[in-house]
């Protein structure tokens, strides 16, 4: 095996690990966690204090919507809106389990009503509307509720004439709502058109992972698009592409830096830099009072 081969293999293994689980493995005890990326044993507290970034290798673990909101918004300023909107089951969908049961389980697991939190809050004192997705709730999939709450957040921005931020984390569309979930792509994109026409700033933050229908709608429509370090972003999933083209993909395929290289995002930020970056962008775009 050449060094290059070894290096490639190692990268592939890392990807395989990440595919399996990119959150922190907390099976090694209550106080300790293990980093899936560098295998380091870490103190839970230490990881939490480091914004859920591995202090050893800098790998960015997935975080849920509430943690994200706490990290981005000034303490006590975030006001959740439209939290009462919940999932219906218009198709009475059932696969190996019923949609209703899956939603119930997701609610119990995440203590969230759905895969997105909408609201308004301040970032370094700058009031913004926001929709923050949560991958733990059914893979962050977009159904009617996600589409509605993202749209409502944008309409809140329109009403208050403030910037809008979308933080995405999604495997794609909510299959269990079929065509209704597809239409959320149209609905949210049309809402972005309204933001554009009103000249309001719309920033998207793409986090691990952002795929499918979310990528192909409001995620990639930011006036400024930021990807968080280590995030993977794409339209089609890695496996679907491999099955279609019958060849294996480059190790860095669909990573944030790959997307940067291919001109699809404006900036990459590590977790710690995200809040100041957002604040700076908002301030740079502030219209002079005249």
């Amino acid at each position, binding site marked *: 095996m050449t060094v290059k081969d070894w290096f490639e293999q190692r990268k592939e293994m890392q990807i395989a690990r990440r595919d399996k689980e990119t959150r922190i493995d907390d099976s090694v005890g209550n106080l300790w966690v293990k980093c899936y990326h560098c295998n380091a044993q870490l103190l839970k507290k230490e990881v939490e204090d480091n914004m859920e970034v591995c202090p050893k290798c800098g790998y960015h673990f997935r975080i849920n919507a509430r943690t994200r909101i706490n990290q981005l918004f000034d303490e006590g300023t975030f006001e959740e809106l439209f939290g*009462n909107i919940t999932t219906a089951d218009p*198709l009475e*969908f059932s*696969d190996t389990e019923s949609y209703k049961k899956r939603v119930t389980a997701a609610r119990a697991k995440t203590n969230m009503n759905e895969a997105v939190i909408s609201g308004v809050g301040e970032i370094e004192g700058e009031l913004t509307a926001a929709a923050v997705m949560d991958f733990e709730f059914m893979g962050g999939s977009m159904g009617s509720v996600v589409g509605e709450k993202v749209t409502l957040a944008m309409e809140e921005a329109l009403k208050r004439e403030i910037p809008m931020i979308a933080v995405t984390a999604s495997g794609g569309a909510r299959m269990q709502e079929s*065509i*209704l979930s597809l239409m959320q792509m149209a609905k949210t994109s049309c809402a972005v058109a309204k933001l554009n026409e009103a000249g309001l700033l719309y920033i998207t933050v793409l986090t691990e992972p952002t795929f499918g229908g979310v990528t192909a709608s409001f995620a990639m429509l930011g006036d400024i698009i930021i990807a968080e370090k280590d995030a993977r972003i794409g339209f*089609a999933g890695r496996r679907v592409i491999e099955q279609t083209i019958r060849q294996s993909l480059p190790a860095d*395929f669909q990573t944030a830096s790959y997307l940067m290289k291919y001109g699809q995002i404006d900036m990459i930020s590590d977790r710690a830099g995200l809040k100041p970056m957002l604040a700076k962008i908002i301030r740079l775009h502030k219209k002079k009072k005249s």
Partner: protein
Amino acid sequence: MAILEFEKPIVEIQKKIQELKEISESSGMDVTAEIETFEKQALEYKKEVYANLTPAQRLQIARHADRPTFLDYVKLMTTDFMEMHGDREGMDDRAIIGGIAKIEDCSVVIIGTQKGKNTKENLTYNFGMPQPQGYRKALRLFNHANKFNMPIVTLIDTPGAYPGIKAEETAQGTAIAVNLREMAKLNVPVIAVITGEGCSGGALGLAVADRVYMLEHSYYTVISPEGCASILWRDASMAGTAAESLKITSEDLLKFGIIDGIVKEPLGGAHCDYEKMANDLKETIMRAIYELRDVNSKTLRNDRYNKYRRMGVFCQ
């Protein structure tokens, strides 16, 4: 012509009738009455079969190898079609074709996904799976229509946007997203028709429209039944069940308020009578154009926005 499984009994009866006719001719026996009866029965049977197809069977019609393609409809519905090639940036994606043409007396921009009818054509048209450059070409043509105040007609028959390396590198997701947003801003009437497969974001990227129609046996879904089955059931052979569960038929979508109408297909499917199919489709399109072409652009945009704004079902 390829024969689908559920078409076989009908083909059998028709063969029998044909045999009877030949016997009658060679023997001089008068079996006219019998043939008439048989034919009536055959028609009844056929009607019954096609009225009771499962979603999985209708899927087969929607994907029929002989189903009329975009270029067939262009030929049969329009005059003076002039194709406008390319995205002006490096590619002329053949999976999406578009141009200017007249439908009756009305100049339109007509755009659609194109499929092939044989292997060679399928390679040319990439099985109707567009690259980002195809969506960008479509956007260029949307803007052309907008500038010259022409209604836009899109015909959609695609298994989805192409999932390839280059497509990801050149921003497939972005290309579709931008089309969704920009279609919302158009000042001219947009009429979209799902003519065969209307699969996923790849279909929607041409279908944010004032009026959306489906051909009777076409389907429109967030994910192919096969894809859905292999993800949710972890078993691709459950595609039939998935097709049921996903509610992908034209009647389902009309019921959900997603589409504005269904264009009936000739008995047996669109491929059985190209001319009639094209003619009926043309009538539907022209009716929509007449309805929309004098609506002022602001109202048009607002109505389009509100239409999509309302989509979705949830509890509050």
